[in-house]
């Protein structure tokens, strides 16, 4: 059985006068020790999806579908069960680690508190030893235990957040833009550390980011989202090398290349559609350079290209002949 199975999940924000369809019909499977990257621009619903899986959304968000953790639906868990599962089975690292902690309490004390939520009877000294061991894993000096968040740099705080997420050796780690705010050097240090940790601690990871290069270098599979819907998913070596969906291609073309000839940089013209209006056809059709009549009238389903490679496009790229 897969570690996590997300089945047909839709998330709608209920506003006083409209509904915003933030995530629509997303399917995702995460096996043990696997790493999946979810890429998309702002407004693509990638963070909403992750927060939905963690049940961290505000009360006006309506969730349908199932998210099965070892076959148990997260959306149906009681609050008590949820508390048991969070941190122990699944944990999260947020983008702004600086804001994830209280500024007026020492870091060690805050981590100790979290530990005690799950194991209230453990003596403090034992927890402290454990936390300092965790610090060592993420390359932090022991003095961090007695520091306040403002005394640390952005990179160090991000390491604290990662150490915190590993405190109970979870099976699944969700990283929501966890390295986005960091410098390239610090980012690649932390990404390397995370990949080592995964091997040693058997952790599966969902990596949410807008930076395709982060996914390319650290994940096995990738899901490309646009306007709340899945555009394409599959192994990174397939999707990012020979994209089938025009959006994936457009996204990749938007990054200037580091090597090779300097080709003209092309963005994707237009803006994200209004998510409170359900599109009749493909959500990307308005901005798609290849859109035909069918694209505006009929919504494309996710089609299998090969193995676990799927795309939601009527006319996948490179298959014009048989379209």
């Amino acid at each position, binding site marked *: 059985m897969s570690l996590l199975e997300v089945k047909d999940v839709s998330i709608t924000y209920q506003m006083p006068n409209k509904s915003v369809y933030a995530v629509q019909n997303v399917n995702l499977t995460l096996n043990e020790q696997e790493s999946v990257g979810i890429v998309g621009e702002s407004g693509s619903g990638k963070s909403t999806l992750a927060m939905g899986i963690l049940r961290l959304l505000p009360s006006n968000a309506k969730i349908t579908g199932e998210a099965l953790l070892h076959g148990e639906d997260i959306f149906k868990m009681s609050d008590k069960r949820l508390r048991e599962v969070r941190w122990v089975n699944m944990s999260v690292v947020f983008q702004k680690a600086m804001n994830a902690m209280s500024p007026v309490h020492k870091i060690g004390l805050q981590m100790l508190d979290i530990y005690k939520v799950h194991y209230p009877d453990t003596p403090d000294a034992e927890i402290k030893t454990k936390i300092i061991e965790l610090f060592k894993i993420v390359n932090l000096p022991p003095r961090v235990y007695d520091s306040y968040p403002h005394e640390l740099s952005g990179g160090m705080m991000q390491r604290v957040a990662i150490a915190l997420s590993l405190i109970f050796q979870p099976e699944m780690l969700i990283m929501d833009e966890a390295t986005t705010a960091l410098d390239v050097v610090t980012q*690649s240090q932390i990404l390397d550390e995370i990949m080592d940790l995964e091997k040693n601690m058997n952790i599966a990871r969902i990596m949410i980011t807008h930076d395709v290069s982060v996914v390319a270098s650290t994940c096995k599979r990738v899901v490309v989202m646009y306007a709340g819907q899945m555009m394409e998913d599959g192994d990174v070596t397939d999707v*990012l090398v020979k994209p089938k969906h025009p959006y994936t291609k457009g996204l990749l073309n938007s990054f*200037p290349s580091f090597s090779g000839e300097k080709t003209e940089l092309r963005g994707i013209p237009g803006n994200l559609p209004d998510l409170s209006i359900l599109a009749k056809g493909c959500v990307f059709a308005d901005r798609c350079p290849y859109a035909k009549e069918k694209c505006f009238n009929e919504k494309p389903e996710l089609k299998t290209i090969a193995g676990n490679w799927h795309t939601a496009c009527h006319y996948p790229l490179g298959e014009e002949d048989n379209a």
Partner: protein
Amino acid sequence: MPEIIVKDLMKYYRQKKAVTTDKGTIKNAEVKAVDGVSFELEKGEILGVIGESGCGKSTLGRVLVGLEKPTSGEILISGTDSQALLKKDRKSFHRMVQIVFQNPFDTFDPRHTIRKILVDACKMHNIGTNEAERTEIVLNIMREAGLQPPEDYLDRYSFELSGGQLQRISILRSMLLDPSFLVADEPVSMLDVSVRADIINMLLKLVREKNATMVFISHDIATTRYISDRVAVMYLGRIVEMGKTDDILHHPMHPYTRALISNNASLDPNEKRERIPIPGEPPTPIGTGPGCYFAPRCPFAKEHCFKSYPEYQTGKDGRIVSCFEVDAQK
């Protein structure tokens, strides 16, 4: 004669509180944000400045456009000393020198409409004779920049626009006065990837059209490569290596440049790049020296690296690099 000449520019900030470093406590410590930067730019040339946060690249930009007063050093723009001109005629200085900031939402007063933002800039610098003429000028440049139809935008407030749209306005306002020198400080790093490309192309088009000289500050190496003719790599307030873009980025010599570039993740999942690790993070530039500033983190540092700061060597391809351990002639 070069359009821009920067000579030994320094910007120090004095700390009011005593600072504790591993070398002991220092009173009246000076943070050397920019510590002796020199370069020359020909008219129409674009220089990319890259480096990690805290390397002084933004401070350099702010000093160049007169937002900060340099501690010492000279900036000559078309042969005029910028500090003297600033004192004499601030307005004509700002007509020559403009800046585009990272976050367009922080650039403008939220109580001003786009009309006020753009038309006021014209008015202040005597572009156009009356309100109607100025509005016409503004509408024209907005149309050219792809804000269609421009009338729709005029009476909106900055927060009613998307980041990409507002950054276009920000670039337009800076280029409105035909500046001969533009500093762009991370102008696209907070925008979505799919709009980034269009903004960069718009900026490039305007700069090329008006034959302006630009300093493009960024931590994104691939974007810098796309936009600039030459690249300067900064570390703790100093340029450690500078030369033609592809020479520097594809054949870096300085250990810091090499490490920085090797840590840059690639879009291609099949490409495996050998990563040069550099431990730790850049320290605050307090009490630096006497040796090479990068030596404490440098994987190739030898004893002499800690004793004196390496002079610039000039390479065959015209680059300058300051490191004892490389031979620029090779």
